[in-house]
């Protein structure tokens, strides 16, 4: 059997959009191997997320129990393994988010599965599935084969279109046998970074700053407000403590693929470029005409961002 199980991600009953990209990848595998796709939603009070996922035409098993309230890999991994057995799954697919990357390898050990991380494309021919994934910070793409009876991979959400709504889905409960008393991991707290702006990975426009901001993200935040954009940052800006760490765009931060990416005061280190080169249009604003960012930008402006960004805001207002 070559059934495919999608491990969903939800928070307080809201389905994470990246799950729909994982569903698309799972369907690609199932189409090739002749299996069926089902999904697993884990949490406590997660029924709304399960219904939302089912509305995309997939049979969802809902593991809903207080012991799963927090996204602890130690608690969630055995449930993923149970669900894989119940579904007769030989493929497990999830999104390459912090949750997915934490959970999937742990669950894979219980299933004896090999894992590929951050898959960009499903390749190979016929029933032979090869997975394309970045190595060396995206400088090289590898085509990998996973061996064994059960295989698992996480997908980079920006590389797979989110699955569309479709009829035929369902939600059935999955009994949870994890004993809370046996857990050796306790959740203490989550300090959320609250923002009125769109999620970096979902935004149509991203405005990002680097060392060239010298810590002043004011102009960029203003431009982001004007454009309804998310604000991103290079590793240099995050390491300096100027902005929260979840603003980091790059191979080791968030990977984004917006329609428009404005890089201001960012030199364009390989690490950063790996996280944003999927953008449709890249604009670079930098004082240094030799900055590597200009080699990949569609439109480059050699200028001081503290003059250029306010001027661009003025021009936008003029229409």
């Amino acid at each position: 059997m070559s059934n495919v199980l999608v491990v969903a991600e939800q928070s307080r009953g809201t389905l994470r959009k990246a799950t729909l990209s994982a569903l698309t990848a799972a369907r690609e595998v199932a189409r090739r191997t002749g299996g069926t796709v089902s999904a697993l939603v884990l949490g406590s009070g997660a029924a709304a997320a399960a219904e939302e996922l089912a509305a995309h035409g997939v049979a969802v098993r809902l593991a809903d129990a207080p012991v799963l309230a927090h996204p602890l890999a130690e608690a969630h991994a055995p449930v993923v393994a149970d669900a894989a057995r119940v579904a007769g799954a030989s493929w497990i697919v999830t999104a390459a988010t912090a949750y997915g990357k934490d959970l999937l390898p742990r669950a894979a050990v219980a299933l004896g599965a090999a894992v590929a991380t951050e898959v960009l494309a499903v390749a190979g021919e016929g029933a032979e599935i090869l997975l394309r994934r970045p190595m060396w910070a995206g400088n090289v793409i590898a085509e990998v084969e996973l061996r064994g009876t059960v295989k698992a991979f996480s997908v980079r959400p920006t590389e797979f279109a989110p699955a569309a709504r479709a009829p035929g889905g369902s939600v059935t409960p999955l009994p949870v046998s994890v004993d809370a008393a046996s857990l050796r991991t306790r959740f203490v707290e989550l300090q959320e970074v609250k923002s009125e702006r769109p999620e970096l990975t979902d935004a149509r426009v991203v405005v990002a700053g680097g060392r060239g901001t010298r810590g002043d993200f004011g102009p960029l935040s203003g431009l982001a407000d004007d454009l309804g954009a998310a604000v991103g940052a290079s590793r240099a800006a995050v390491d300096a403590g100027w902005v929260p760490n979840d603003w980091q765009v790059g191979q080791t931060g968030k990977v984004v693929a917006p329609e428009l990416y404005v890089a201001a005061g960012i030199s364009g280190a390989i690490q950063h470029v790996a996280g944003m080169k999927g953008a449709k249009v890249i604009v670079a604003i930098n004082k240094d005409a030799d900055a590597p960012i200009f080699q990949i930008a569609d439109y480059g402006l050699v200028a001081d961002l503290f003059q250029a960004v306010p001027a661009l805001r003025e021009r936008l207002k003029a229409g």
Partner: protein
Amino acid sequence: MPLKLLVTVKRVEDPESRIRARPDGTGIVTDGVNYKMNPFDEIAVEEALRLKEKHGGEVVVASIGGAAAMVELRAALAMGADRGLLVRHDGALDPGVGSALLQALVAQERPDLVLLGKQAIDDDQNQTGQMLAARLGWPQATFASKKESLESEAEQKKQPGVVLAADGGRALVVREVDGGVETLDVALPAVVTVDLRLNKPRFASLPGIMKAKKKEVREIPAASLGVELAPAVVVRRLFDPPRRQAGVKVADVAELWTRLHAEAKVL
């Protein structure tokens, strides 16, 4: 309570080196490529040294690879680690095999805490720590970080980010997740994988480098550890990603706006 800390040290291509696929797709071009300790592992070594400085104990560094990996082990010993283990394995390695070999080392060394980089910057798999924790049945805290920035006073004081409970039986770990920072409380023994913003690794001092030469490094043939060594993740071919072409330089903001508006139609 003194701690026993086991830290992984992987030899990888220097991130500053230019990496590209060989035209035949069988590997990468190694001409002119330098090697160094995986930067995430360097942060793990630093964290282990700070924990030892605070609580006492021993830092054991382990690598899996060919004889050349001795260079990176010596680098970790020069930073201050106490002794090294080199699991000699010349073939391809995947996280499944790597975590199984580390499990065998854990059985021998019985550490309180295993620290690993969250990923190695060659295969970028981000799996080995999680798989090791699963194999051992230990709790895991991945992507360990700090709430304070690397420029903060707390960082200047070189305090560890992992905070041990007074009885030494548990540890608080702050970790980077999507949308914020999470704190977990894990019972020891545990596996912790580290992210970029946990600390700034120290440089080895000259006396440190001299001392490192005399520190013990035990070589262990991988085949002696009773682990299946055939990888289940097999790279069939490597290729360079499509390159983005450089676009145009615009003269001023007015031209930039016109191009974005009329040409690219994104504004």
